């Protein structure tokens, strides 16, 4: 998913597409190769646009055929039926794809119950509907198809195939630029975060709805444009030829084969699949689909993460092998034609890429002792006293939350002031986590009010609440698993209360890793660190949003005594830095040690509140706590 110097190959691709036709005249490069290349470019645009939505954000779409199809029909109707010019058709093709994408996005992404699966099925149905509409509407198609005349285009473009090549190339480059640009900016990172855990992304300040809309819009726009170009090329348009399973299935096949997590992955997949199909078209009668199917099965089974993922491990070896094969065949010159040589070179590159490699980079593990030491002993830090209590920051008034018939919270009022560290305690099921969810916006109260610094946040989306200065952690850590520890923090900085760009965020990330003592593990993926470290990562990520209030939901659950001490030190450090904290915790020892004030919930009601010593003496608290604990043990 990472970018870097992607502009080099991008510029090279754009340049080659631009000059190829002149090069062709100079070298006698046969025009028919433009057909093959145009096909690669068409599928590059389609698969890349699909991947921006489905690969980056994880919202799997079966509806590529819908975006492609409206692009095809927009141009076909405008040019074939109304005799308008081709460029107007292209424009309308892109707009049609875009509009359809926005409509689908607005409906699908607004659904509260939307899961990835539902989205996938929803998009599956759309092409069937569009196909039927085209068929029964005489002014669109009427069922007989539309024949397009060869368009009149400026002589500058040369032969028709060259014209199509350039158009396909322009759309493919546009797709790749958007796909690469996203990787290098907040837009892509928001999608990667959504891909891994949408709720967490929203809770770190990512406006998830907006970014999903941007992704689907990019998908629709590019697919529509590319569809319009292909309509010009094919020349005969019919509903059954347009809205079938080919486009939706092939973009998935190409993206997965190439590598969904890489901006160039779908393009690589397109190159492979188109070349393979080209070589299978003649002379394999009765076997072509068997070979294609077998290659697909084997690649998915043995390289599920795609060719790009293997390529990056040993790029020069692979390029050298491919170049060697290509050069050898070209020099020998007795066998096949250049396309066969190229296909064989691609094939050998794939074989080398698929050979088992050594250990995967980026998963190094530090020794356990060195890991913990950093956070515990931080000699440079002065032992300052707790910050003083200031003005009220959060005020919850008569907050009630019901789930069906069950009251999780009944009219709870509480406030949190600057500099406070409130311990929120109570037996299981007393409503602690519900309160955290209400404060962070993950849930909405059934009734009651919540304000932050005087601003009502009840109707705000979680990411807006983050921007008001509330951040949270999860009881069971929910890191973005496909990003490194450092990049987890980077996402939070980029979308926090004081948003920054990618480069600036990368620089700033070290500060937050140091705060929790994870500096040594920045390049490790969350799968490679232990529970304690993941909980520290939760805190680092929450702090990276630059909150004024931090909600820690049982951040110490499941830790051993040494780890608890370490975590307590981190919490204290965060508190001293001036952040108010709500600490939900079972371990009364810890709460007593840290909290400036304690709030006790029982059965959804506020039972008691005050300074730790007083509250813990309260008979009602003792009875509720011990009684229910005793009850729980009997169970």
């Amino acid at each position, binding site marked *: 998913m990472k970018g870097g110097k992607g502009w080099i*190959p991008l510029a090279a691709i754009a340049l080659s597409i631009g000059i190829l036709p002149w090069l062709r005249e100079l070298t006698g*490069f046969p025009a028919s190769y433009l057909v093959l290349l145009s096909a690669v470019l068409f599928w590059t645009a389609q698969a890349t646009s699909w991947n921006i939505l489905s690969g980056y954000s994880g919202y799997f779409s079966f509806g590529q055929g819908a975006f492609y199809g409206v692009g095809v029909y927009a141009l076909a109707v405008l040019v074939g039926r109304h005799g308008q010019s081709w460029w107007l058709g292209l424009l309308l093709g892109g707009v049609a794809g875009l509009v359809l994408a926005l409509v689908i996005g607005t409906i699908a992404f607004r659904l509260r119950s939307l899961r990835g699966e539902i989205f996938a099925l929803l998009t599956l149905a759309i092409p069937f509907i569009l196909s039927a509409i085209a068929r029964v509407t005489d002014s669109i198609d009427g069922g007989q198809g539309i024949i397009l005349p060869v368009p009149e285009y400026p002589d500058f473009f040369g032969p028709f*195939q060259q014209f199509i090549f350039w158009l396909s190339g322009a759309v493919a480059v546009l797709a790749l630029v958007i796909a690469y640009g996203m990787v290098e900016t907040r837009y892509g990172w928001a999608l990667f975060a959504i891909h891994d855990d949408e709720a967490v992304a929203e809770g770190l300040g990512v406006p998830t709805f907006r970014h999903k809309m941007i992704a689907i819009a990019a998908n629709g726009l590019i697919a529509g444009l590319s569809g319009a170009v292909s309509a010009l090329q094919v*020349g005969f348009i*019919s509903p059954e030829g347009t809205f079938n399973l080919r486009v939706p299935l092939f973009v998935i096949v190409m993206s997965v084969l190439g590598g969904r997590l890489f901006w160039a992955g779908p393009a690589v997949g397109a190159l492979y699949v188109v070349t393979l199909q080209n070589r299978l*078209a003649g002379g394999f009668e009765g076997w072509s689909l068997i070979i294609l199917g077998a290659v697909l099965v084997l690649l998915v089974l043995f390289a599920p993460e795609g060719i790009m993922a293997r390529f990056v491990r040993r790029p*020069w070896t692979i390029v050298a092998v491919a170049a060697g094969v290509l050069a050898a065949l070209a020099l020998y010159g007795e*066998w*096949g034609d250049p396309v066969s040589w190229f296909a064989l*070179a691609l094939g050998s590159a794939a074989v080398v890429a698929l050979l088992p490699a050594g250990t995967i980079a980026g998963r190094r593990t530090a020794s356990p002792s060195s890991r913990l030491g950093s956070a515990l002993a931080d000699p440079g830090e002065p032992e300052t006293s707790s910050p003083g209590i200031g003005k009220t920051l959060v005020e919850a008034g008569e907050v009630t939350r019901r789930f069906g018939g069950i009251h999780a919270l009944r009219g709870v009022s509480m406030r949190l002031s600057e500099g406070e560290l409130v311990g929120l305690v109570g037996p299981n099921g007393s409503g602690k986590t519900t309160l955290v969810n209400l404060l962070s916006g993950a849930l909405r109260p059934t009734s009651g009010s919540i304000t932050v610094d005087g601003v009502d946040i009840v109707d705000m989306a979680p990411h807006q609440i983050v921007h008001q200065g509330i951040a949270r952690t999860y009881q069971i850590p929910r890191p973005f698993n496909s990003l490194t520890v450092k990049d987890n923090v980077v996402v939070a900085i980029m979308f926090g209360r004081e948003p920054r760009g990618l480069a600036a965020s990368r620089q700033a990330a070290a500060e937050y890793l140091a705060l929790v003592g994870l500096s040594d593990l920045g390049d490790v993926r969350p799968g490679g660190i232990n529970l304690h470290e993941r909980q520290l990562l939760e805190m680092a990520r929450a702090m990276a949003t630059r909150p004024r209030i931090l909600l820690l939901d049982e951040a110490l659950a499941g830790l051993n005594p040494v780890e608890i001490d370490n975590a307590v030190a981190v919490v204290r450090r965060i508190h001293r830095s001036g952040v108010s904290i709500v600490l939900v915790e079972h371990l009364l020892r810890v709460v007593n040690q840290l909290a400036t004030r304690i709030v006790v919930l029982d059965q959804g009601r506020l039972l008691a509140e005050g300074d730790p010593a007083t509250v813990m003496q309260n008979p009602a608290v003792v009875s509720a706590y011990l009684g229910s604990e005793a009850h729980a043990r009997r169970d």
Partner: protein
Amino acid sequence: MKRRMKAGSAAMALALVVFACGDTAADTTTTTAAPAGTTTVAAETTAAPPETTAAPSGEPIVVGSTLSLTGAFGPTGVIHQIAGELFVDRLNEEGGLLGQPVEWDLRDDESVTDNVATLYEQLIGQDGVDLIIGPYATPNILAAMPIAERHGYVMPQHTAVLAPTLTYPCQFPAWSIGFEPNAFIPNQLADAMDSLGGAVETVALVTNQSGSAAFVTFGRPDVEEPAAQTIFPERGYEVVANIPYPPGNTEWDAIAAEVRQADPDLLMVNGLGVDANGLIEAMLALDGYRPPMIFALFPAPGPLLALGSSSGIEVLSVSIFEPNEAILADMEPSVTEIVDEFAERATAAGVPYTVFETQAAASWNAWEILVQGVEGAGSLDHQAICDYLHESGADLTFAGPVEFDESVNNFWDTNLGIKQIQDGDWVMVWPAERAAAELRGPSS
């Protein structure tokens, strides 16, 4: 990171260079040897009996084409494949073309229209085939034609129905369905019905909404023109139902119920493949309902014949050739040979319906047009071939002498007729002068 991106660029640059340089080598290799992956038909002919005319010699002439060997059009594609292979083999046995052997480079377009254009571009541009022949099915032909036009290749084609849209002067229809099939077919059917002396008064139209079939029922959507739905009323037949359905339809029960409700004297199924089968079976399942007369436009002949024979329904359809004995008797003996050899090869290929009929005859016509054009022009120059065909026409085994008039998109006078299932066989019944038997009216 930087490393791998540079590697990518380097690979691409290299690929470009090799492609550019490789081209010169390619030019020589493709002409001296058959391109990789060619279906080499010529190879089989080395075992040809010695008594035939001088064996063809020299470099083979390569004819390129696609057919839908798999996918939706596959069932008919295989018939065109067998017919074409038979033609090429016989041609090579008889001395080849211009004294050279002929090779057919056949590719599978998988019934996907988009593939057709790409494959023809490759055949002509990349592999440099000498001649081409059209693919099967109207949409595929429409996709291939612009490529042929761009390269100036002569393209005989078997089956395109949308005659008015085939404007390339060097495309030559081999199954001439008339310049206005939308008017011709309904009128011919109405003529036949007229001959039944009032037995048929009402018509139900059931139409597959895909290019060719819908054209016959409705005409083109944006043009006012005669078609079945207007011609039947003009000819005094009442249209009691007019039902379109989507291509790939599998649910016939509702349509069957509609037709039974309308109870027409003639049911015209303007469908493809086994559409008519599905509808007839669904109607029979409604208490054995059957309209007195049924006409099916472009059916798969085998399954419909089997259904018609077993259920005793005398279905009508279009045809340009049926190997009925009465018809074969009037033709050269070579026709019987062709018909028999086709049946042998079809059986060997595992095809269930082995009769050499309309589709195969159309294929044969297309090959003959191509071969006669080349022989007439005496060269492989496409303009010369095209000019020769316009000037001199062709003499076709299954259609007699034909002429190509550019003003009607080369659609020669149609020899389309109507066939009927009679006693377990398809039999030509209309027009009377080319019929092998008399049209049977509704049995009451």
